[in-house]
């Protein structure tokens, strides 16, 4: 089935996008690292805006914030990665933690502590993706990611209260 290759294609493309963001000598040092992360996050943001238009099939089903976050965990993750997030936690004060124990961009890299410093580069795009989708659906937020042990990672979404 042609649709099954979608996730693989996207993963391969993403790997190259990260490499390109740090290529041509841009990636040296802390400055370069931050610049690369910003570029990747910005890309993810724009993609998220487009996805927010395409994905919700039909009704305005998001009566509250939690519904929107659940939509991210189920439908967005399903469309982009072919699976759902494994865990969602919230403190009901506007902070949500989306946990994925088998994050597709990291499964090919390592299992455990190896390459831990390189991991953030591969999470920046997804952070932007989440932020862009939320922004398009009317929720301003800031998204950060953390990894303690590949390939599990956590995305923390903090909703900006006006």
């Amino acid at each position, binding site marked *: 089935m042609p649709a099954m290759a979608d996730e693989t294609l996207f993963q391969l493309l993403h790997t190259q996008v990260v490499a390109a963001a740090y290529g041509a000598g841009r990636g040296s040092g802390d400055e370069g690292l931050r610049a690369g992360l910003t570029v990747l996050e910005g890309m993810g943001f*724009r993609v998220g*805006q*487009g996805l*927010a*238009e*395409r994905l*919700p099939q*039909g*009704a*305005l*089903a*998001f*009566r509250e914030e939690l519904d929107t976050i659940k939509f991210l965990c189920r439908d967005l993750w399903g469309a982009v990665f072919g699976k759902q997030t494994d865990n969602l936690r919230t403190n009901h004060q506007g902070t949500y933690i989306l946990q994925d124990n088998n994050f597709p961009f990291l499964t090919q890299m390592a299992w455990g502590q190896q390459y831990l410093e390189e991991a953030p580069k591969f999470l920046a795009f997804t952070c932007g993706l989440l932020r862009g989708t939320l922004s*398009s*659906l*009317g929720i301003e937020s800031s998204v950060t990611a953390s990894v303690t042990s590949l390939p599990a990672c956590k995305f923390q979404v903090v909703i900006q209260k006006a």
Partner: protein
Amino acid sequence: MAVCIAVIAKENYPLYIRSIPAEQELKFHYTVHTSLDVVDEKVSAMGKALVDQRELYLGLLYPTEDYKVSLLSRLGIPCVKSMFPNQLHRYGYVTNSKVKFVMVVDSSNTALRDNEIRSMFRKLHNSYTDVMCNPFYNPGDRIHSRAFDNMVTSMMVQVC
């Protein structure tokens, strides 16, 4: 026949507005602007109502002077229609990203069925989604896409 089609951004400024005949453009700009209040009212009313599925399609909007208005809500509240010649109907539609589509339709020739209006809005939404996904388009800019123009032209002519 659709005489005016407008795409309004979340912040209530127009992303795209086109009307025929061209002389009446200012009047249609005004019409669409006043419709926005009605759209906002409907959207906030839907927010409070405990419905499981809220519709994107808002139906016929408010009536004023020479326009006919009827409310087609999801809960099936009956619509009161008064028949005047040369009636201009205004229809609204909101996307998940709070972008609104307003359509003004001249029903003097044929009474357009609700389904046809819905399908027109669906086409509009699909074209708008394509515009959104265009990497050369920055969200918030006016829409210059020729593909979008052509789709709107086909809607303004075909319904005659």
